[in-house]
């Protein structure tokens, strides 16, 4: 496209050089080209500064930044949670051992022993409470691999699980606690309420990862922490995930699991995107489960956050990934996150419908700006070219209409030109005057020469008339002499012929002359005209034999025996005719 435009532009310039264009048109095209280049430069600058950036590029940068920031925040939060979970595990392990020692019990003997468990829980409460107020969480739990009553239906574990009554985003200093699982006496002694869905013990089968941790064998627990998948908190409207670490006794037995709760609402409040983020951008920390993703959704700045079912599918793409959570579709970026022994996906999302809408708007905006600039460029070119060229044209017009009285031009170059032209004019006028003089002189010379020639011609004509008259006299005289001579000669010839010609033969010749055929008569006439045999053959268009044939017939009919005789008779006949006619004339 660009190459095409460049080519077209080159052709235009070439054409302009070759063809005749008005000064204004030529100037406007050059100016327009310059302004177009300037517009492109402005567009480039606007693009670099982001003013006319395509929304696509802008969103890429924003999502990338938010993904990195969220990743960093979540890793920090998870590291803190993991560190405190591990520390809490060590403390709870020591605390359990202390109580067991005091009560002279083995861990197995805690089963069906509510008194000992109550004592243990009272001590553990402060540990959990202290940690809860320090780390970013919505609750803390301590689940033992035993139960207060073996006869309770279902697989329950003795536990202390406390939660913040209300969820705040920044810290929990002003927050009160409630007991979700645990001994009510502990709650009442500590002045906290029971959660409305309080139960004495926790069903670990509600969180598969807890069962996995409880059934494992561990040496060092430092790397055994994990972030569970999101699970519904039994009987409540809440969903949560847990940072969980096993609790291992001195002898290496896994006696429980402890850690912190991150409820969905808490995650939403703490995992908000930055102020730089686009409205409606939000993150989600997801876990993969049979090609589908579930997890927790972070908050956005304001506005749109649809009621998601928390069941995502991710379709990777070379540009932005497509993340679907029917009926909603998002575009976004994803990154893998490993938190302890669990793997997760961090996704930064933006609603697809809004993305398409804003993309179109940004393109429209860029197009409008471009068109506006082009319009300004075009208008400016036209206006500037007019402004620039019109005084020149006025001067030229002046030059055309009244070259003799040129008003001084406001353009120095043209003023110089006018001066130059005036000087040239003066020079030309001088030359013209000289030439005019020369012309006049030459005209005079011409008239004189012409008169002279006319006189000479008149003289020559007179001489010619005289000479002609003399010549006429001489020719008349010569003609008379010729006629006299000829007459004398004819008389001589006649006398010679009469001497040579037999009168009978001649009579026969005259009498038989009319017997000749047309062809023979024609050949006879040619002989009389003095033509030789070859000329007669050519004129009569006959062969030599045919001529001989006609000659033989002519000779036979006229009674002669040779061509010489024929010519003699013929000459005599002519002379006879002349004498007869001259005698008649005389």
């Amino acid at each position, binding site marked *: 496209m660009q190459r095409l435009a460049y080519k077209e532009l080159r052709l235009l310039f070439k054409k302009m050089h070759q063809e005749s264009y008005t000064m204004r048109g030529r100037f406007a095209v050059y100016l327009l080209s310059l302004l177009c280049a300037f517009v492109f430069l402005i567009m480039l600058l606007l693009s670099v500064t982001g003013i006319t950036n395509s929304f696509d590029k802008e969103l890429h940068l924003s999502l990338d930044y938010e993904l990195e920031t969220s990743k960093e925040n979540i890793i920090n939060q998870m590291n803190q949670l993991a560190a405190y979970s591990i520390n809490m595990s060590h403390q709870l392990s020591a605390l359990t051992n202390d109580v067991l020692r005091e009560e002279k019990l083995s861990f197995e003997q805690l089963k069906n022993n*509510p008194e000992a468990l109550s004592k243990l829980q009272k001590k553990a409460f402060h540990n959990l409470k202290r940690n809860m107020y320090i780390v970013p969480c919505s609750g803390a739990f301590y689940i033992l691999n035993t139960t207060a009553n073996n006869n309770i239906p279902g697989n329950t574990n003795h536990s202390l699980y406390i939660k913040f009554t209300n969820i705040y985003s920044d810290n929990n200093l002003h927050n009160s606690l409630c007991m979700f699982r645990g001994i009510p006496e502990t709650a009442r002694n500590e002045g906290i309420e029971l959660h409305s869905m309080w139960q004495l013990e926790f069903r670990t089968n509600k969180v598969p990862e807890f069962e996995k941790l409880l059934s494992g064998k561990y040496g060092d627990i430092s790397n055994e922490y994990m972030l569970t998948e999101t699970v519904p908190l039994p009987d409540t409207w809440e969903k949560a995930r847990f940072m969980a670490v096993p609790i291992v006794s001195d002898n290496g037995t896994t006696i429980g699991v402890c850690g912190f709760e991150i409820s969905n609402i808490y995650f939403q409040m703490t995992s908000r995107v930055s102020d730089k983020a686009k409205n409606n951008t939000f993150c989600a920390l997801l876990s993969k489960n049979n090609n589908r993703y579930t997890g927790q959704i972070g908050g956005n700045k304001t506005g749109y956050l649809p009621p998601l079912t928390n069941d995502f599918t991710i379709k990777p793409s070379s540009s932005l990934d497509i993340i679907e959570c029917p009926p909603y579709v998002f575009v976004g970026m994803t990154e893998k996150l490993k938190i302890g022994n669990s793997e997760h996906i961090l996704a930064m999302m933006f609603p697809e419908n809004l993305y398409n809408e804003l993309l179109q708007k940004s393109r429209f905006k860029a197009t409008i700006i471009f068109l506006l600039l082009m319009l300004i460029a075009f208008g400016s070119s036209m206006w500037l070219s007019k402004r620039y060229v019109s005084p020149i044209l006025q001067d030229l017009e002046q030059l055309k209409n009244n070259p003799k009285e040129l008003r001084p031009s406001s353009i120095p170059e043209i003023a110089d030109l006018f001066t130059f032209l005036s000087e040239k004019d003066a020079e030309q006028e001088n030359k013209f005057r000289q030439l005019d003089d020369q012309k006049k002189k030459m005209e005079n010379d011409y008239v004189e020469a012409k008169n002279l020639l006319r006189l000479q011609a008149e003289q020559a004509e007179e001489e010619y008339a005289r000479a002609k008259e003399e010549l006429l006299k001489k020719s008349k005289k010569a003609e008379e002499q010729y006629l006299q001579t000829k007459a004398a000669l004819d008389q001589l010839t006649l006398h010679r012929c009469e001497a040579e010609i037999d009168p009978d033969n001649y009579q026969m010749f005259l009498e038989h002359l009319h017997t000749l055929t047309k062809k023979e008569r024609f050949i006879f006439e040619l002989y009389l005209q003095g033509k030789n045999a070859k000329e007669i053959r050519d004129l009569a268009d006959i062969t030599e034999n045919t001529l001989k044939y006609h000659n033989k017939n002519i000779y036979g009919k006229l009674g002669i025996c040779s061509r010489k005789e024929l010519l003699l008779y013929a000459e005599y006949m002519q002379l006879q005719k002349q004498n007869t006619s001259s005698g008649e004339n005389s």
Partner: protein
Amino acid sequence: MRKVLLILAAFLLSLTMTGCLAENTNLDPKNPTTLSIWHVYGDQTKSPFNDAIDRFNRTVGRDKGVIIRVLSITTSYSIDKGLVDAAKKLPGAAEMPDLFIAYPRVVNTLPKNILLDWNNYLSKEERANYIEAFLSEGYIDGQQLMLPIAKSSEVLFLNQTLFDRFSAQNNIDTSELLYWETLLPLCNKYYDWSGGKYMFKLNDTYHYFVTEMMSRNPALNLSQNSIDVRSTEFAAAFYPFARAAIYGGLCLEHGFASDLWKTADVISSTGSTAEVLYLRDDVTYSNGVKEKIALQVFPYPKSKFGKSVAIQRGGGLFATKSDDERKNKAAAVFAKWITSNQENLSFTMETGYIPVNIKAAESLFANYENVSNPKYRNLYHAVSQMYNKYHFCSTPLSKSSQSSQKSFENALQKILTHAHAEFKQRSAAGENREQILDKLISESLTKMQKELL
């Protein structure tokens, strides 16, 4: 040519300006407006209000471009505190929610002009759909700052299963629960029978004194004034109350009765009709064993010799006024939807509240016997017994009402708990129980007067 260029430039400029400057204040389903809400309906249990919000988001909200997100379900006191902290922007405080459920008392604790006047978004016809008394409760300083969405009164809840065991052995009838004169002494019988457990807890002890004093003297206007602890009405209400509390059958512990109900540490309580949502159908004993129980509901106890008075409870919906007009409009869309006839009826019936929509309320009381859940059927039966026979007064609203109520309750709890401990100690020492009791009641009254004056 110049005209064409000018027109084209003007067109392009107008397009640019329209794109840059125009601000749309209409709701847009393609770009929905999200409102956060703090409410009290459900606490940490499965919340019928949340279900209603889900329904709204899927239907009207989706069509009109409004999404409601629940950020907190907690008590009205927690909301009050959270709002004050948020308004003051204290470190660590949450952001002000767009919508919240609160009592009118909260208005006095918040900065002026941050609340939305619903009247700007309700037509006269729409206002006529609300029960006037409920609507007027939210009309403060010439503005409709609180829009009622569900109201309640107070009733008495009974763990019928455990009470039956007690009554069977002591020849007691549930009719004794209907009057303060019989109910409070019964607490002590239960205390003795159960080996020192509470029988009864009032969720709001302050309300007991308000209703009892007004029952004895209807001229008292305790909706506007605080309790006068030197009055004869107070003393008359205090004596039977203190006797049960000092003896031990009446629970004075902080918190809601539903907490102790879970572990069978209390078997009856007075509280909001909405308490039904939190009172379980089972109790858990300390060894982890659970027992199914039956829940019965009775009208709020009254005085045999006075007028029947009960508190009209239930907060209302407030909205934070926003500079973004779409948010204000979105709040109005949700408020109208939740108080529409059918939605108001189904939401209130799931939570134990009374509808605020006139048609919904009429429909409820005409058909409560058809309610399938026996708990709720009992509840509405009890409420219907009170509906035309009780005088309902709203909770006190004054600048100091919240703190004076708190001071009163704290003093009462402290003095009577101390007296109870002393009673137990001196009884154990072999002193005459009745004499000690009378003496401690008298001393406690004096202490109350000293403490609160």
